[in-house]
């Protein structure tokens, strides 16, 4: 089956603006979009650049806009997106080359919410106990692979580049609702900022974009309510 791929290319060494390029690739309906990108890169145009590693949706390297929506290229099959296929880099982060964007601002935001367990108490020489119910409270947000699909699908983030973004809030949620953690106050303090959780306008794009099926908006709402109740 011949698939027509339209890819938004940008080479910083020669282009001033992005431009669309067309490729025709022979593909099976069961193939991943990533496989098609590889076919182009390996056998047609070696300069096409994109990130990838695991090829099965667990490393978070290859979020991109496929037919107008954020997806992981390794997680969608040709038959699910139809023909032609339009591919662009994720939005709101500076494009470095082709489908590669600068992830530094994204990770900076992530680091700002103190994404690590805070607990000064001596834990003893066995594990801390935690009931399965307490463990379930943050199960959803532990799944995050930091792919940025959510943050770069958020209309607020596109215009307000200072917004910390859903991914960072998800990772704050993972600790705020962990019964072993004691850093809730500090994290909520950070998320009270103009660029924090209250920037979210419940557009839900993040939730539909998340390849891990995390209920991102729900997590953000949990954080908003927790902040409200905490002050």
């Amino acid at each position: 089956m011949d698939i027509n791929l339209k890819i938004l290319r940008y080479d910083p060494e020669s282009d001033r603006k992005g431009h669309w390029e067309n490729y025709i690739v022979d593909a099976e309906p069961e193939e991943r979009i990533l496989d098609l990108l590889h076919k182009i890169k390996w056998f047609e145009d070696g300069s096409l650049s994109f990130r990838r590693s695991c090829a099965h949706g667990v490393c978070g390297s290859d979020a991109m806009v496929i037919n107008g929506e954020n997806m992981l290229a390794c997680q969608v099959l040709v038959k699910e997106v139809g023909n032609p296929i339009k591919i662009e880099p994720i939005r709101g982060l500076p494009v470095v080359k082709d489908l590669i964007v600068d992830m530094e601002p994204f990770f900076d935001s992530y680091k700002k919410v103190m994404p690590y367990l805070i607990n000064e108490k001596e834990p003893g020489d066995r594990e801390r106990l935690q009931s399965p119910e307490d463990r379930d409270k943050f199960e959803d947000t532990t799944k995050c692979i930091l792919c940025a699909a959510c943050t770069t699908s958020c209309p607020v983030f596109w215009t307000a580049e200072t917004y910390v973004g859903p991914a960072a809030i998800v990772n704050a949620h993972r600790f705020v609702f962990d019964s072993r953690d004691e850093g809730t106050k500090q994290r909520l303090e950070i998320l009270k900022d103009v660029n924090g959780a209250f920037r979210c306008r419940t557009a839900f794009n993040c939730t539909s974009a998340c390849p891990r099926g995390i209920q991102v908006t729900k997590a953000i709402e949990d954080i908003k309510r927790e902040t409200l109740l905490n002050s």
Partner: protein
Amino acid sequence: MQTTRTDWGRRQPPVGGTSFELQAWFFMRVSGLALVFLAVWHMFIMHVFNDTLNLDYDFVAARWETSYWRAFDWLLLTLSLLHGTNGLRVVIHDNLPDKTIRKLAHSVLYGTSLIFFIIGTYAIVAFVRQV
């Protein structure tokens, strides 16, 4: 952390601080709820139960005979101005990345809102029937 890339667009992630954003957010919900009664009721009175075609000096004057309606209208004025101003504050913040321009736009917004609040309040308070 190592930062080796260019400084382009280095964002300012949140640093925390005041509860203003939380309060503003909460105020939007509360004032929104109040406005459902005030604004929607106002719209119904003016457009459905009456018709704006019939709106005239006498109609308004009669309404403002009672302090109930003056209070109603003043509350509507105040809350919708506050609600709208805060809404626009966020819209401006979202869309104007440049700090100086944003500051300017915010000042214009707050100034305008204040002037209109004064005009509106003055009208409601100072109105006396002339004929």
